[in-house]
């Protein structure tokens, strides 16, 4: 059945999509914001480590349903596995209104100037599709500011000499260090480094009519019981709804973007919550499904002019899948270094994000979110007992005495690290699922070794009596920080969209999510995805009246 035509369909109510929907709605466009998941309801989710978005053992509280949404993972030796959100390298983020921004750790990083110009600064990297962004930090700066003020960020850059310039402070003061944070801060200072409080999309004081954070032991992987964590579900999406111009249609799975014979998007085909098929016509379509699902949807949207999927005539859709290799070190202390003041991560430094000798890029280092008991069972120095009385003793003697300094390494984009669709494996709705394959660039592992060594130095200086490194950076990329699969660029032959997130050859089809990112920085990506949401949304709103976007 056909639905009433609207100006814009936005697919995915996460970080990028929620913001675009709001930008369009407040500027008078009629919008349907589609989300395959539901509105998150705090009380539906027990405070349960085994069903948390961080440790998805028995289920993913914020979606997607693990029975209905398989994916395929291809190993280095070519073996294919069907995986689910609770088993085997799925790379889940979330599926609900707000998506990852409901349950994220909420670190609120701006990328640095350098992150937008890696190729210019470091030169080409063999075996990598490394490229400069078609936009600069300066282009995005006002939109970072908008994200910080509208969504809500606590922080202070003053003591971070590597921070990119900003016109306006973050709206809320930073969080205080917990005990571990203070110890790491002091050690980093003694080493001549430049530690400072982690910026957070979390209220340090009352903001936006919602309360301040109560420093729960943990919130990474959970929704906030007092609603002090800021995502799109409790900020921009409600604003969009208030305009009366936006409808959020939940539990609707978009199956396909319909592209007509003239190469314009006509609207979308989708299944509603009763699995009934519909067509929703629209003047423009914005895809914000997250890097993996966005690529999958584009690839599943085949048409006469784009037989290999929307915008994929040059085979770049789904390529350059990046995430973040997490890397760092652990240290054991002979006193309780963790006071479990939540959610844990409080102090960071950007000394190693750029200009490291012989390296391309780098990554931030920070202390880590508090670990809940099951997660901690896997944290042991190499060679330790994995079970038995010694394992148990370590658990109760060291739970508060283990510190971790860790960070996301900037991955080198790799052409063969990619999302394709698997025509032999279908989801609940009969749609070919995303297939993840390829592996990280070899440089990532080298960079991880460098950053882990730095982390270990800090822990030693902090007084750890025993330290060990955990080095990441090999194998398949993706994960919660998935990015890069529909990257921006000026050349239609080596990118998917232009600098405004507009498809090179489909004027009224836009992307606004992590897929846009040319590279993923050495920082958690959410604030940059939000800034990109404002950037793309603002461009559409400003240019909508020009007829070129209209199908009719």
């Amino acid at each position, binding site marked *: 059945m056909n639905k009433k035509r609207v100006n814009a369909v936005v697919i995915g109510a996460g970080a990028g999509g929620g913001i675009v929907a709001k930008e369009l709605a407040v500027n008078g466009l009629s919008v349907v914001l589609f989300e395959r998941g539901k509105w998150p309801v705090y009380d539906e989710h*027990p*405070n*349960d*480590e*085994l069903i948390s978005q961080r440790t998805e*053992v*028995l*289920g993913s509280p914020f979606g997607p349903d693990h029975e209905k949404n398989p994916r395929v993972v291809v190993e280095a030796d070519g073996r294919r596995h069907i995986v689910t959100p*609770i088993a085997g390298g799925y790379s889940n983020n979330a599926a609900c209104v707000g998506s990852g921004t409901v349950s994220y750790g909420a670190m609120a990083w701006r990328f640095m100037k350098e992150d937008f110009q890696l190729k210019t600064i470091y030169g080409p990297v063999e075996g990598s599709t490394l490229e400069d962004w078609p936009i600069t930090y300066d282009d995005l700066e006002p939109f970072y500011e908008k994200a910080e003020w509208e969504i809500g960020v606590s922080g202070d850059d003053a003591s971070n000499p590597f921070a990119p310039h900003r016109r306006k402070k973050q709206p809320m003061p930073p969080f205080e260090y917990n005990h571990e944070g203070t110890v790491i801060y002091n050690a980093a200072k003694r080493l001549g480094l430049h530690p400072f409080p982690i910026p957070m999309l979390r209220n340090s004081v009352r903001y936006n009519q919602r309360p301040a954070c*109560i420093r*729960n*032991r*943990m*919130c990474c992987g*959970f929704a906030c*019981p007092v609603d002090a964590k800021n995502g799109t579900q409790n900020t921009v999406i409600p604003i969009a709804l208030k305009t009366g111009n936006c409808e959020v249609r939940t539990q609707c799975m978009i199956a396909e973007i319909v592209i007509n014979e003239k190469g314009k998007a006509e609207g979308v085909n989708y299944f509603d919550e009763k699995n009934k098929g519909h067509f929703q016509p629209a003047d423009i379509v914005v895809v914000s499904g997250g890097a993996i699902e966005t690529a999958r949807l584009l690839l599943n949207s085949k048409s006469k002019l784009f037989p290999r999927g929307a915008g994929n005539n040059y085979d770049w859709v789904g390529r350059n899948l990046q995430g973040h290799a997490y890397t760092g070190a652990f240290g054991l202390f002979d006193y309780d270094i963790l006071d*479990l003041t939540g959610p844990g991560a409080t102090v960071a430094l950007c000394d190693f994000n750029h200009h490291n000798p012989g390296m391309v890029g780098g990554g931030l280092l920070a202390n880590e979110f508090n670990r*809940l*008991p*099951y997660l*901690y*069972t896997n944290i042991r120095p190499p060679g330790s007992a*994995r*079970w*038995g*009385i010694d*394992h*148990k*003793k370590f*658990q*109760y003697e060291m*739970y508060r005495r283990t510190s971790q300094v860790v960070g996301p390494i900037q991955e080198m984009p790799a052409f063969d690290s990619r999302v394709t669709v698997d025509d032999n494996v279908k989801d609940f709705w009969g749609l070919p699922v995303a297939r993840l394959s390829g592996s990280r660039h070899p440089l990532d592992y080298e960079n991880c070794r460098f950053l882990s060594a730095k982390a270990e130095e800090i822990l030693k200086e902090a007084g750890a009596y025993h330290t060990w490194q955990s080095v990441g950076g090999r194998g398949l990329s993706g994960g919660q920080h998935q990015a890069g699969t529909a990257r921006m660029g000026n050349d239609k032959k080596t990118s998917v969209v232009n600098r405004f997130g507009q498809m090179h050859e489909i004027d009224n089809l836009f992307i606004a999510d992590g897929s846009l990112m040319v590279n993923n920085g050495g920082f958690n990506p959410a604030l940059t995805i939000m800034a990109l949401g404002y950037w793309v949304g603002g461009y559409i709103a400003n240019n909508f009246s020009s007829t070129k976007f209209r199908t009719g």
Partner: protein
Amino acid sequence: MDKFSRRDFIKTSGIVAGGLLLLPCCRYTEQPYRFFSPEEADCIIALSEQIIPHDKYPGATDAGVIYYIDRQLSSVFHYDQQTYRLGIESMQLACNDMHKKLFQDLPVSAQIMVMEEMEAGNLNKYNWPGGNLSSFFNLVLKHTMQAFYGSPIHGGNKDYMSFEMLQIDYPLVIGQNRYNS
């Protein structure tokens, strides 16, 4: 009913249920497992007890780890059923060859030895199509940790035993320390 708090209600119904247990018709013990046979369960109980042994704090048996595993195998982890069935069978075969006993009937020191051999992948002759004892061991290890350290609502960690051991209170996310020792 209005005057009762939820907790009172649970307490009251507990007394009723306790009373019922005294009736002669209920003396026969019902099969308490959904997936395991009693003998299989005894094997997994013994195995998980050595993964998380009782010391000054309760161990896997006290915490009801078996109920977590049994329940999850009949629901979320249904795809691991075959591995458990064949894993237990081949583990018992190995114990019989080496000691002429079931795993659960071995002295602790011998149990630990068998477990070390399993973990190290030294019992390859007991492989079965699509499985082997070292990956079975790792699976039981993982499930035992989940059961003991996860939330009691899934069947293990009875009375929040492991949280008490770690001196963290419930609910985990919002709690502050309650067990001051």
